[in-house]
């Protein structure tokens, strides 16, 4: 007796002939071939998508209760925390979500650097990912201004002043953002709209990023793409089950932040309403911007600080051109295996330096760390791809 074959229901047949969503989902998320040897670091993409989902869902409800007006913004956020039913939960879900998003983003990016996921044929995947990171950064910056606390105001002032130093388009762009000279009501309205609109732009960009991934397929720790279907596994149930487990662990960390340590990563100064007449003793960024803030401060000139902070990101964009070696994972490249962890360490050191007042020691630390970051990408990577003997 022949084994019974599964026939799709006639109704889905009808839909499929007109709009093949079922076939598409089946191909891209059930039978989609995945390398067999992915490690836990490959789950961070899934974490990022889930976190974005949480951020947008909680953000919609926060936006319903928020008032983008300098006279009422702070009070409306206080009301969300105190009087709106479950408002405290929405708000910590949103605030904790930003931390989880950036943590996963930096790990996801670090994984790409370590296993050479930016190399052919995945250059476009790399670039769309970096573009997404920039969008997330702009959104996070705009969002941090909205509660209109002291750090919101003064952090934004630092950034806007830095932006103004850019020759030619710095002034017009900052005026477009602020709607005038100072950071006031018009600016708050514009930043609110920017924050809200960017959230959905990010959703679209994620679509592009994931679509690119499904064309070039996942990289893997060996750096050699699977040649035959025998070397792959279907996405479902192998990676769906593994991602589900990883997600549970990830959500436990997220929940720990939301329910038990809501104040761990926020600056208490931001619970004081913005006051343009009182500058806080030290203006500190949120942890995820600290590395770039450290670079901004490490050089005496405002313009070159800004140039270097942007440059630290720009080197990532040109990395596929700087690293010409066909070997992907750093594990197989003795020089990169040494230099890249130092670059990661530099990034972390810059982050720590950015959260401390700029004393002599921290300035020196951030200068060395910054130097290594650029040396790794601009000197070591091109050199290593020329003369490295890979194992």
């Amino acid at each position, binding site marked *: 007796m022949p084994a019974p074959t599964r026939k799709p229901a006639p109704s889905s047949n009808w839909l499929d002939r007109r709009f093949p969503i079922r076939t598409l989902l089946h191909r891209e998320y059930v039978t989609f071939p995945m390398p067999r040897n992915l490690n836990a670091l490959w789950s961070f993409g899934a974490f990022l998508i889930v976190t974005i989902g949480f951020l947008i869902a909680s953000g919609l409800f926060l936006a319903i209760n928020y008032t983008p007006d300098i006279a009422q913004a702070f009070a409306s956020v206080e009301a969300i925390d*105190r009087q709106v039913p479950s408002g405290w939960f929405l708000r910590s879900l949103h605030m904790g979500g930003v931390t989880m998003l950036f943590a996963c983003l930096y790990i996801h990016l670090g994984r790409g650097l370590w296993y050479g996921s930016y190399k052919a044929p995945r250059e476009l995947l790399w670039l769309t990912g970096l573009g997404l990171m920039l969008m997330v950064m702009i959104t996070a910056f705009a969002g941090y201004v909205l509660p209109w606390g002291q750090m919101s105001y003064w952090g934004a002032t630092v950034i806007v002043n830095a932006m103004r130093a850019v020759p030619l388009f710095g002034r017009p762009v900052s005026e477009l953002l602020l709607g005038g000279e100072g950071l006031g009501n018009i600016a708050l309205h514009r930043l609110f709209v920017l924050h809200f609109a960017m959230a959905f732009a990010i959703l679209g960009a994620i679509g592009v990023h994931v679509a690119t991934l499904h064309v070039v397929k996942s990289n893997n720790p060996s750096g050699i793409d699977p040649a035959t279907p025998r070397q792959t596994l279907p996405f479902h149930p192998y990676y769906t089950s593994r991602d589900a487990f990883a997600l549970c662990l990830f959500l436990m960390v997220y*929940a720990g932040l939301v329910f038990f340590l809501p104040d761990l990563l926020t600056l208490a100064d931001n619970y004081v309403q913005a006051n343009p007449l009182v500058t806080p003793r030290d203006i500190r960024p949120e942890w995820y911007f600290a590395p770039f803030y450290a670079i901004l401060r490490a050089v005496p000139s405002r313009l070159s600080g800004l140039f270097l902070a942007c440059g630290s990101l720009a080197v990532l964009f040109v990395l596929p051109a700087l690293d010409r070696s066909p070997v992907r994972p750093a594990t197989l490249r003795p020089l990169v295996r040494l230099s890249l962890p130092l670059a990661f360490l530099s990034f972390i050191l810059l982050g720590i330096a950015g959260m401390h007042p700029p004393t002599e020691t921290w300035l020196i630390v951030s200068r060395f760390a910054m130097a290594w970051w650029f040396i790794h990408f601009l000197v070591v990577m091109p050199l290593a791809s020329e003369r490295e003997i890979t194992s």
Partner: protein
Amino acid sequence: MIRRAFISASAFAIFYGLTVVPASAETPAQRGFAVFQQVCSACHGMEHVHYGDLTALDISSDTLRKWAADQDFPDGVDDNGDPKTRHGTLSDPILAPYPNAAVGRLANHGLLPPDLSRLAMTLPGGAHGIRNILLSYAPTPPGVKLDEGRYYNTALKWKHIGMPPPLQDNMLTYADGTRATTNQMASDVSVFLDRIAHPHALQRRRIGVFVLAYLAVMAVLTFLLQRRIWKS
């Protein structure tokens, strides 16, 4: 060794249960509320906290409703253009002692008493810092000259503060009979302000335990699931 530790721990628990918590005890936060209501609120507001929010400290809504109804809130003008007032309700923010910042400054030698909504969060040292300030008043040492309206206080960097010493022994009577020493009141009010600065903290932790437990169970189940799938 372990047995001795166990015995002393249970002895401590029994001692603690018998002596520190009498049957009809008010919590420190509730006593702190009494201090706020009778002492602090003369000069400090809590503009973001509503009367009703204090039910989270297990203060009865009748007490709060009565307190709110005793306050006169500005309520526009009548037909003749004269200012009107109305009684407060549970959904009103706790009435500030001064109609505006300028009046507050005028009444306090040019310094505005800070709002207490988030003070236990924003003051360096938190609730502990508040208690410390309340207990660190001392007579001005000879040779130190302070401006009018400044009081010597060792808790601050510059050794002076604009707030006159607010607490004196037995200045109020606690409903639960606890002796209202300066020390006791300072501890109670700092606990109260800590609860106010971290709204819903207890509820947050209670829900968090359930969320974590649920996720832990799910983690075990999905772990077993993925192990079974990967074995095949």
